[in-house]
């Protein structure tokens, strides 16, 4: 009986310790989660399911979803001004990419194919380069632009490539800006963002979101 009492006492002590550890852990995780949420207030990755159901993949929840796409006017590689407003009535995929982005190189051929497939239904892609541009040095600026053009050509991009995407960092990325490439926003014919993707997904995912933008 005495031994049972001792063991029960030890068990209660262990339980109390675990309860305290659990509470402390919960508090820590809550604070960590709040910090993380605060740091990515512009967009959040939540667990999702891969197409084959085998692996959990993150899904990008942008606060822009359901809202009008922020308007912009940027230069293309030929120096022409291109504004998002001029595409009203079309479904538009705004694809933020960079010459140094490996996953973008995998995704871009899919985009080229999908653009050709859906262009006749009123679909267009705007490839917004986020590469740094040195406006203080005309020679470096020309080199920067030439590199973007060369990269776009090598990737076979036949849709408009816009430069100086850094100016859209906050409108599309929130207070912390667009923190990773590729990032895509799918805009419907009324100028509303209907879907967003962060990182390399799959051609099927992109196509699904293009159909959403086309309201198919």
């Amino acid at each position, binding site marked *: 009986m005495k031994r049972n009492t001792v063991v029960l006492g030890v068990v209660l002590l262990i339980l109390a310790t675990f309860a305290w550890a659990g509470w402390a852990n919960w508090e820590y995780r809550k604070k960590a989660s709040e910090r993380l949420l605060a740091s990515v207030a512009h967009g959040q990755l939540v667990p999702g399911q891969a197409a084959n159901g085998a692996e959990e993949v993150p899904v990008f929840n942008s606060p822009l979803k359901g809202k009008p796409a922020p308007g912009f006017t940027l230069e293309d590689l030929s120096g022409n001004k291109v504004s998002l407003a001029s595409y009203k009535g079309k479904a538009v995929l705004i694809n933020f990419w960079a*010459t140094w982005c490996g996953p973008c190189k995998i995704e871009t051929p899919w985009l080229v194919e999908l653009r050709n497939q859906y262009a006749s239904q009123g679909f267009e892609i705007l490839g917004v380069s986020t590469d740094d541009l040195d406006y203080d040095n005309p020679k470096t600026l020309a080199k920067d632009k030439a590199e973007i053009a060369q990269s776009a050509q090598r990737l076979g991009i036949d849709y408009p490539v816009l430069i100086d995407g850094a100016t859209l960092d906050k409108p599309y990325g929130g207070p912390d800006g667009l923190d990773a490439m590729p990032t895509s926003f799918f805009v419907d014919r009324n100028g509303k963002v209907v879907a967003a993707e962060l990182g390399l997904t799959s051609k099927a995912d992109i196509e699904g979101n293009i159909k959403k933008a086309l309201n198919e």
Partner: protein
Amino acid sequence: MVGLNKATRVAAALALGIGGSFVHGQIPAGDAASRQVLKTAAVEYLYPEQVTVAAGKASDVTLHFRVAEGLHINSHTPKDEFLIPTTFSIPDGTGVRLEQATYPAGEEFTLPVDPQTRLSVYTREFTVQARIVASPGNHLVEGKLHYQACNKSECLPPKTIPVAIDVIGK
């Protein structure tokens, strides 16, 4: 458990079970950790914080860095001209001159979705051997490591982190 009554055994088992679940809960999820570092530094300078070298003579210093879990950075010799190489530099006027930096060979890396493309990257811990020449005295040097990091599906913009070393030239 010999000699203990049934209720005591159940309580002990419960205690162990609950304890186990708390311990499991404290293991951070890999994705969340990887995601969090996207917002902070992908690479961390580890050591040395201080070195003593012969003044006026070339000395080799091995700098240790760590790449955050789940990420990789391009090696000094990436296999594509558009990829940004990892480079170390020391600004002029610090009393310490970088004569040469020697980088490790990158490890081969392929993305699951594109196994044909082989990248040359650093992951986990890597070192850069810096051959420096210090003038006599104490110099608080802020070297710079420039890199560009990615995980399996997304890439972060290029970044430069400070590499603070107290160099004593004797």
